[in-house]
C-alpha cells in the first residue's frame, strides 16, 4: 500500500494546481459563468494544453495513457475550484464510452479532437421516469438500413447545450425497465431530428434537455442490445471521479470555514474559540477524512473486473461520501452564518456544487438502498 504520488503524478498535480490557482479564483469563475457558454473557452484550451483532456486515453489513440489515479488528481483539483467546463461530461463520461466501448475507428475519429479541446461530448441518459436507474430507458433505437434512428427525450444532459456528440442510451428491445435490450449510440448534435434546450443548473453548470426525433446515429457501441454493462462501467468510473471532486470541494469549503472562524468576532472573541463550534468543525474533519479514504477506495474499486462487486463498492462510495458532503456543505453554511448565504461569497457555491454532486448518478438514499438490496459489503456468517 502506498498513498503517495510518484514523480509524474506530483508534476501533474502541480501543473493543474498552479493553473487553476492563477486563473480560477472566485472572481474568474463568476466571469466564466456569466459568459455566453457559461464556462471558459480559454480555460478549456488551457486544459488541452496541460494535457488534461487527453490524459486518460491510450497513447496509441492520441492520449497520454494516464490511469485512474491521475484522473483522480485532476478531479480533486477541479473540485477545489468547482470548475464549470465540460471536463466531466467530455473526458470522463464521453471519454469513458470511447475507452471502454468504442472500436478503433471511432477512437481514432474522436480522441484526437477531444484531447485537443475541439470536440465536446455529452451523455444523454436521464428520462422523466428513470430517476437514477440507468436501465430505465424508453427512448427507442430502430434499425434503419445499416444504421439506427433514435427517438426519445433525454433530460438533465450535462453540458448537452455545447456537446458535439451525444452518447445516447436507447432501447432496441424489451420493456421500459429490462436490463437487456439497451444500446449506447452516438448521435451528432448537428444530426437532423436533434433539438437541444439548454439551461443552467443550480450549481452554475450548464445542461440541456435533448429531443431525438428519428435522429440518425453514427455509431453503436458494441452490442446494440447489450450496452448496459458498458454504461455501468462508465458510470462506476464517473462515480469515482465525482468522489474525488467532492473531496476537493469539501477540503476548500472546510478550510474557508476555519479561516472565517478564526477571524469573525462575536461577543469579543473569534467564533472559532467557541467549543461547540470547534466540535462541529472537528466532525466535518472526521467526515472529510473518511470520505478521502473512500475516494481512494473508489479509484481502486472502479477498476474491479467483477461487475457485481464493483457496483456494490461504488454504491458504498456514493453513499458514504454523499452523507459526508451533505454534512460538510450544511455545516459550512451554518458555521459561517449569514455571509455564506450570499451569492457574493464562495462558500455557498461550494455548498451548491456538493449538493448536486451528491445526487449525480444517484443520491445517498438510492445507493444505500441498492447496496442493502445487494447484500451489503460484509458477508453474513
Amino acid at each position, binding site marked *: 500500500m502506498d498513498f503517495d504520488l510518484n514523480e509524474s503524478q506530483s508534476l501533474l498535480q502541480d501543473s493543474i494546481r498552479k493553473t487553476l490557482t492563477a486563473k480560477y479564483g472566485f472572481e474568474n469563475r463568476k466571469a466564466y459563468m456569466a459568459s455566453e457558454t457559461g464556462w471558459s473557452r480559454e480555460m478549456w484550451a488551457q486544459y488541452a494544453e496541460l494535457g488534461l483532456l487527453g490524459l486518460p486515453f491510450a497513447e496509441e489513440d492520441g492520449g497520454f495513457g494516464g490511469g485512474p489515479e491521475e484522473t483522480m488528481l485532476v478531479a480533486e483539483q477541479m473540485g477545489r475550484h468547482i470548475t464549470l467546463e465540460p471536463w466531466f461530461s467530455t473526458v470522463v463520461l464521453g471519454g469513458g464510452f470511447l475507452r471502454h466501448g468504442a472500436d478503433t475507428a471511432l477512437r481514432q475519429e474522436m480522441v484526437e479532437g477531444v484531447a485537443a479541446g475541439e470536440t465536446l461530448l455529452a451523455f444523454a441518459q*436521464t428520462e*422523466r*421516469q*428513470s*430517476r*437514477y*436507474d440507468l436501465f*430505465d430507458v424508453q427512448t427507442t433505437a430502430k434499425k434503419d438500413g445499416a444504421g439506427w434512428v433514435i427517438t426519445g427525450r433525454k*433530460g*438533465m444532459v450535462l453540458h448537452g447545450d455545447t456537446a458535439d456528440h451525444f452518447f445516447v442510451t436507447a432501447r432496441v428491445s424489451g420493456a*421500459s*425497465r429490462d436490463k437487456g435490450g439497451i444500446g449506447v449510440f452516438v448521435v451528432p448534435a448537428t444530426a437532423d431530428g436533434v433539438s437541444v*434546450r*439548454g*439551461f*443552467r*443548473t*443550480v*450549481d*452554475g453548470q450548464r*445542461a*440541456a*434537455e435533448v429531443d431525438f426525433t428519428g435522429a440518425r446515429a453514427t455509431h453503436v457501441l458494441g452490442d446494440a442490445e447489450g450496452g448496459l454493462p458498458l454504461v455501468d462501467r462508465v458510470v462506476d468510473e464517473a462515480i469515482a471521479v465525482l468522489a474525488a471532486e467532492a473531496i476537493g470541494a469539501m477540503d476548500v469549503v472546510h478550510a474557508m470555514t476555519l479561516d472565517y472562524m478564526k477571524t469573525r*468576532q*462575536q*461577543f469579543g472573541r473569534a467564533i472559532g474559540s*467557541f467549543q*461547540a*463550534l470547534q466540535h462541529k468543525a472537528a466532525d466535518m474533519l472526521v467526515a472529510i477524512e473518511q470520505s478521502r479514504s473512500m475516494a481512494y477506495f473508489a479509484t481502486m474499486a472502479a477498476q474491479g473486473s467483477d461487475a457485481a462487486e464493483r457496483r456494490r463498492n461504488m454504491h458504498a462510495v456514493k453513499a458514504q461520501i454523499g452523507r459526508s458532503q451533505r454534512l460538510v456543505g*450544511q455545516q459550512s*453554511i*451554518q458555521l459561517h*452564518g*449569514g455571509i*455564506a*448565504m*450570499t*451569492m*457574493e461569497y464562495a462558500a*455557498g*457555491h461550494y*455548498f*451548491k456544487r456538493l*449538493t*448536486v454532486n451528491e*445526487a*449525480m448518478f444517484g*443520491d445517498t*438514499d*438510492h445507493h*444505500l*438502498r441498492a447496496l442493502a438490496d445487494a447484500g451489503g459489503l460484509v458477508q453474513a456468517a
Partner: protein
Amino acid sequence: MELRFTEAELNFRQEVRDFLAAECPAETRAHMIAGKSPTKAMVVEWQRKLNARGWAAPEWPVEHGGPGWSPAQKYIFREELQMWPAPSPLGFNINMCGPVIIEFGTEEQKKRFLPRMRNLDDWWCQGFSEPGAGSDLAGLKTKAVLENGEWVINGQKTWTTLAQHADWIFVLARTDPAAKKQEGISFFLVDMKSPGITVRPIITIEGGHEVNEVFFDDVRVPADHLVGEVNKGWDCAKFLLGNERFGQARVGASRERIRRLKMIAKETLDGGRPLIEDPEFRRQMTEMEIELKALEMTVMRVIANETKRAGTGKPDPATSVLKIKGTEIQQGVSELLMKAAGPYAWVDGDPDAEGSNDWDVAPDWAFGLAGIYFNWRKQSIYGGSNEIQRNIMAKAFLGL
C-alpha cells in the same frame, strides 16, 4: 387538564377556513403552493382584506384594532393561514414594530403609525443587524447624534429583509458612544425616502433578492421619531425579540409543505414505482411528521401557559424548543422536497421570470425546490442561530 380545543375554538377554525376559501385569491394560493414567496402586491392585497375583516393585527389590543383573540385563537389563525397557504400579516408591521409602538410609543406615534401599519399603507422593515453585529446584536456601531433638534444617523445595516419594498424602517442606533454595550442604544423610526439612505440588494445563494444592505449617510430624523427613552432602545429590542414566541415554529407551514411533498412523491417514480412507496423515503417523511405533531403540542403548551406566565417574565422552557425544532423540521422537509424531485431539482431559476429558460425541461413542481432548500439554510442562522438558542437554554433553563 383538558387537552383538546373547545367547541368554540373549533368553530373559530372553521370561520377562518371559510374566510380563506372566500377571500384568499386563488392566484396567491397557487403561487405559494408552488413554493414561491408572495409578491408585494399579493401581500398588500391580502393584508387589506384581513384589515377589512378586523383580523390584520391578531396580537394587538382591541383599542388599536386587534381582534381580541385568546392565545388559542391566535394560534389557530396563524396556522390556518400557513396551511392554506396564504400570506401571514406582515411581521415587520404587526409583530415587530407595531407592538413596540404600542408598548413604548407616544400617543402621537400610535395615532400616526398604527392604522397605516395595519392596512399596510406603510411597509416597514427592520434595521437591527450590522456587518459586525449578528449573533452579538448589541455590538452594533450605527450611531445617531442629536443636531439642532434632529437625529443624524450614520452607519450600515445588513440582512434587511424586503427593504426594497419598504416605506419605513425601524432602526437601532448608538446614541451614547461612551455607554456600555447594551446601554446607550436608541430605537428610531425612519422614513425610507429620507435623503442619505441607500438600499443595496444582497442576492442569496439561490438567486433570490430577499435581503439588503441599508446605508445611512447623514440621515436626518425628527426628534419625535425616537421611540421610548433616549439610550433605552435596548428595552424596545428585547421586548420585540421576546414577542417572537411562535414565529419560527411554523407548524402550519410545515404541514402544508408535507402535503406538497406527498403530492410530489406520488407523482415521482423511483425504481419504477411511485416514490411514496419507498420505505426509506416514507420513513424520513414520517420522522418529520412525528416531530411536527410533537411541536404542535409544544406550541399549545406554550400558549396555555401564556396567560399564566404573563407579567412574571419567566419564560417557559418549552419556548426554546420552538425555534430549534421548528427550523429543523422546515429544513428537513425542504431537503426531502429537493430529494423527491431527483435530477429535476437541479434546473435553476424561476419559470415565470422574464427571459428565463424554456421551462419544459422539468416537471412544473420541480422548479425552485433546490432553491428553497438552499435558502432555508438561513432558518437555523437568523433570529438567533440555533447555537445561540442552545446557549440561552443552558443558561436560562439548565443553570449551566
